[in-house]
């Protein structure tokens, strides 16, 4: 795994955004981040830190949940995309894989994958080619292509969700919590595929993940989000070695194992940046 982002070319730039739900609940309090071309960028943090909201702000899925970006800007390849519909974003190559898979339960696995190609206009032959490509990355889906997605396992559904996104020929995938509810082995398998897709297909990833350990092993760069703010960022290798990250997110410390109570009290005393 590389220690720095692969290229310097910035694809996605989030600039100091603030997101409010229902006109009152302030969820993001000024988040800025940058996704370079060809890299895997991790967005880490605990429950309710704002990871999903950040991804949804980028992919513009906030509206249907009555969320709103009230400040800041989001640019993709230098142009402002804050007001684009999800459809237009997908056409520009940015697609989100939502937390909790969200497969179309009553569609077969193959139909699920084909819905990913909905925005494409380059003809059936090209789509069929990509379908084969997805099956080559996820051979398990090829075996189950005729079964209803609702009846497949959690791991298979995650594969369907990623495969479906791939069918849109994306440049950037916003991947939300792929490890959720999966066995460690499966998490490893999914992350290895993500790495493969990144290296062989050149897909850039912005990855929201609670599983800091796995995420930092596969990502090039990481941001740590706490209560709607970025509190730390750096190359993944550096974050892995950072004593605070080690203690709070990886559960290791130089003084050996600490009890949960000690960690909590320590956390209350110390504030990240400010």
């Amino acid at each position, binding site marked *: 795994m590389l220690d720095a982002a692969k290229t310097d070319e910035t694809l996605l730039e989030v600039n100091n955004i603030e997101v409010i739900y229902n006109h009152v609940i302030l969820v993001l309090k000024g988040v800025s981040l940058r996704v370079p071309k060809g890299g895997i960028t991790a967005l880490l943090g605990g429950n309710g830190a704002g990871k999903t909201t950040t991804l949804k702000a980028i992919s513009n899925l906030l509206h249907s949940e009555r969320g709103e970006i009230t400040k800041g800007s989001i640019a993709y390849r230098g142009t402002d995309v804050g007001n684009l519909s999800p459809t237009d974003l997908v*056409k520009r190559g940015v697609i989100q894989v939502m937390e909790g898979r969200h497969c*179309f339960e009553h569609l077969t696995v193959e139909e699920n994958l*084909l819905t990913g190609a*909905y925005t494409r206009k380059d003809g059936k032959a090209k789509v069929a080619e990509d379908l084969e490509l997805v099956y080559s990355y996820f051979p398990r889906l090829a075996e189950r292509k005729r079964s209803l997605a*609702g009846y497949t396992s959690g791991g298979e559904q995650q594969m369907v969700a990623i495969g479906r996104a791939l069918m*849109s020929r994306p440049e950037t995938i916003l991947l939300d919590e792929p490890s959720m509810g999966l066995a460690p082995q499966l998490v490893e398998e999914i992350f290895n595929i993500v790495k493969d897709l990144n290296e062989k297909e050149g897909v850039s990833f912005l990855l929201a993940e609670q599983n800091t350990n796995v995420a930092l092993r596969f990502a090039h760069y990481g941001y740590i989000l706490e209560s709607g703010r970025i509190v730390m960022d750096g190359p993944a290798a550096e974050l892995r070695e950072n004593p605070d990250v080690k203690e709070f997110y990886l559960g290791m410390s130089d003084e050996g194992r600490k009890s949960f109570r000690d960690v909590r009290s320590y956390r209350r005393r110390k504030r990240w940046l400010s």
Partner: protein
Amino acid sequence: MGAQFYYTIEVFLNGLMAGVMYALVALGFVLIFKSSGIFNYAQGVMALFAAQTLVGIQTGLVPFSHLINAALGTDVHHFGWHIPGILSILLTTLVMIGFAWVVIKLVLKPLAGQEPIILFMATIGLAYFMEGFGDLMWGSDIKKLDVGLPQGGNFAIEEATASLGGPDFYGFYLDNLDIWAAVIATLLVVALTLFSQYTATGRALRAVADDHQAALSVGINLEKIWVVVWGVAGFVALVAGIMWGSKLGVQFSLSLIALKALPVLMLGGFTSIPGAIVGGLIIGVGEKLFEFAIGPMIGGATENWFAYVLALIFLVFRPQGLFGDKIIERV
């Protein structure tokens, strides 16, 4: 075989025909419910409005003539032309698609993401609005609808079967209009099924039905899908309006056929196109046979309630209906 046996078959056949007519209305409900989770209370009124518009266009009525005359002091009622049936059906279809677009833009889009009950209330409002709007546009008098569909009994069938049941039996009486309705409904269902199973738009439609958010996330344009769905539902309403309107005349009570669609939906399942058809057939046949066999013993008029009781029984034992989507729950 005695005449009684053949009478039963005749009742059965007529029940099938009536069932197709119910199914036509139920179909419109299913389309919208399946793809947006909205129970469209206005479906019956849409059928009425479509029938009114069809008659209006066909006979060259001036829309809003009462308003125009009142405001300008003129006395115009007719353009003085008569448009052929097929062409006026086509024009009415366009009107219904335009109507779908307006509903999406003005009603559904601002309410996107709200609770289903709120959307349901919106469709109730829509129903009353359309009822008034239709009357305002075309007048509230009872109109005759005739797009050239054959009416009356089918003599060929009657004569061919007359010899079956002995001297007391005069052959099966089947209404030509009902036969046509059955043929058209069958074609409609086949077309809709092919469309939803084998086209990209149909697939997107089913995807939207399953999970709005996920559909949005893969770039499916919800608004476009909704316009397609409401447009198709408008067309189905038109077909139902033509069939029922040819039978009963175009008048307010046409919108009440929607009530007959409810038990059909409970039986067939709110989310299944074939379910709407089979449900309609079961209700049609069931109520006719019940009236024929049991009705005389309990004073008749069982057709008024039979369907609802049957639906109630289904709600207890199979709430998703015969063909409704399986409620997938992983453990």
